[in-house]
């Protein structure tokens, strides 16, 4: 018995040594991290002047932060096996609710933020319930939600303020304090950073913690990987999905609020079209479209790549139309890289398993 244990112990040590690269490549975010480095280096060569500076970093982070917050929430949902096409327009809806109620009724912005949050949670809940109860693809259900909100955003705003823009949000009670918390600027080494970035980093850490270190994370991966298997092991898959839809809606609320506080106004068209950018960032970050695989850090890396491309093209003085061409290339490359790394991780393990069996046979 004792000898057996020692032999097993020795084996484990050897595994730990050869397993380092395999484990590295098994992380879903590896492709995105490499991609981020490559894109950064690319612009560092093309347009080194401003790029390689604190200001450059500040600009990139500013451009990535709200997108990053959304990408992380969307990644959680995608790992859970679903999509939310209403996530982009929801940032506009919540911004409009907060902006309109507080400017029209003179309520404290804190109170109207709660109203908008309640609305977002209800819509997220309904999205989730409809998806799990009907079994229809979330693509269709949330596409419907997307159209409803998109139409209502313009319609209601016109009815209430007679135009498609809500202005003067900075005159409502509580604005300055809220701005301080959610979206104010601060200086580091002479460059202007924003509190949004801090939110983004904290939320990425929390999401990673939940995914990798709690039972709920286990449930999310299992629900997206195989909902039937998860359910038969006692995982409340339906509730997991509903909670994830409520999470993306909550993230959209947070971003909508942040935009109100930054721009001091809200427009009815805000957020439309962004839903695909969130999904693309998550996919660049290693999420599988089929669910059950991905990471929060990867999604944040995907958002960072976006920010870098956006800022880099401006710095280089190129036409912004190139942004989408660049994006398409990034998406294609990252999907191929992710596919490759995943298959590689699996191939290595299968080879290992085979070697083990042969070893046993020989003995």
């Amino acid at each position, binding site marked *: 018995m004792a000898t057996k244990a020692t032999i097993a112990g020795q084996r484990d040590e050897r595994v730990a040594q050869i397993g380092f690269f395999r484990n590295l490549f098994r992380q879903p975010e590896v492709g995105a991290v490499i991609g981020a480095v490559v894109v950064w280096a690319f612009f560092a060569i093309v347009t080194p002047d401003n790029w390689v500076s604190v200001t450059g970093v500040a600009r990139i982070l500013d451009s990535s932060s709200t997108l990053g917050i959304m990408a992380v929430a969307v990644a959680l949902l995608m790992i859970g096996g679903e999509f939310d096409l209403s996530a982009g327009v929801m940032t506009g809806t919540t911004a409009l609710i907060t902006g309109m109620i507080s400017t029209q009724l003179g309520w404290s912005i804190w109170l109207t933020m709660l109203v908008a949050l309640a609305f977002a949670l209800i819509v997220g809940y309904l999205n989730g319930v409809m998806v799990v109860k009907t079994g229809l693809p979330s693509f269709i259900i949330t596409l419907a939600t997307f159209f409803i909100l998109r139409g209502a955003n313009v319609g209601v705003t016109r009815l209430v303020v007679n135009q498609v823009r809500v202005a003067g949000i900075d005159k409502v009670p509580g604005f300055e304090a809220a701005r301080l918390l959610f979206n104010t600027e601060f200086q580091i080494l002479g460059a202007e950073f924003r509190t949004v970035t801090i939110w983004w980093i904290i939320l990425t850490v929390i999401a990673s913690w939940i995914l990798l270190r709690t039972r709920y994370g286990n449930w999310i991966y299992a629900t997206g990987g195989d909902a*039937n*298997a998860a359910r*038969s092991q006692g995982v409340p898959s339906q509730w997991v999905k509903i909670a994830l839809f409520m999470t993306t809606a909550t993230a959209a609320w947070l971003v909508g609020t942040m935009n109100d506080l930054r721009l001091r106004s809200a427009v009815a068209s805000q957020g439309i079209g962004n839903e695909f950018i969130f999904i693309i960032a998550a996919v660049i970050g290693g999420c599988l479209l089929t669910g059950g695989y991905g990471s929060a850090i990867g999604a944040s890396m995907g958002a960072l790549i976006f920010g870098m491309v956006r800022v880099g093209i401006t710095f280089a003085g190129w036409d912004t139309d190139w942004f989408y061409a660049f994006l398409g290339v990034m998406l294609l490359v990252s999907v191929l890289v992710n596919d490759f790394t995943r298959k590689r991780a699996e191939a290595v393990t299968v080879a290992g398993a085979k070697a083990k069996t042969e070893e046993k046979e020989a003995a």
Partner: protein
Amino acid sequence: MTEPILAVRKISKLFGSVIALSDVSAEVYPGQVTCLLGDNGAGKSTLIKILAGVHQQTDGDFFFEGKRVKFNSPREALARGIATVYQDLAMVPLMPIWRNFFLGAEPEKGRGLFRRYDIEFAKRTVREELGRMGIDIRDPDQPVGTMSGGERQSVAIARAVYFGAKVLILDEPTAALGVKQAGTVLKYIARAAARDLGVIFITHNPHHAYPVGDRFIILKRGRTRGIWNKDEITREEMIRSMSGADEMEALTHELDEVTRRRETNKLADSEAGS
């Protein structure tokens, strides 16, 4: 002999007008492998689904640990210690072994906001538990999807044993496996029984049943065809009573005929080609 851990008396099950089971009686003893054999549609799955709480019998009695019971859901049966490993195994291919092993019953440590999955415990336990079943996993982080079918079956069995199953039901665990992998799974079935579980092993294959089985129950068209202890029946007798000797002979003839015709065709083809 000890008391049976599980017994059914004159159980019947109707699905509408379909009689899936009629008057079936059987016992399962702890520390034994009870094999359930029979043709397609004989009622094997129906019987174990009653035991597992998926179906309820139309008629007859079901005793567990000496008491009459009726389970309304698989959860109730599982809570009492009747675990079922179905063919789909209830495992998530992209997730590592250790995450699959504890899926739905994750060990935790810490308090409040810092309550977290006890990953170290999970990995260690998986390694130990699989080790006790004689499964040597090199790396608990390996995704289950990259394991062989036999290894996956073995992990599912080890999981049921670890979570305190008293009765372990296996529905055709060797059906999709090659000879060697099937052998591996049979070994773990025997080990589970050695840990004093009552194992119910469903199979079509008498060559898989005979080596590990202690008792054999053969069903035919929803009825008990016979129950034997191992010392009461030889492998050949068992094969014969499973298939019915005449049917088997007829089949052999038919197959011979087909083979002969194919060879004639091939001959004709090669002649035409040359």
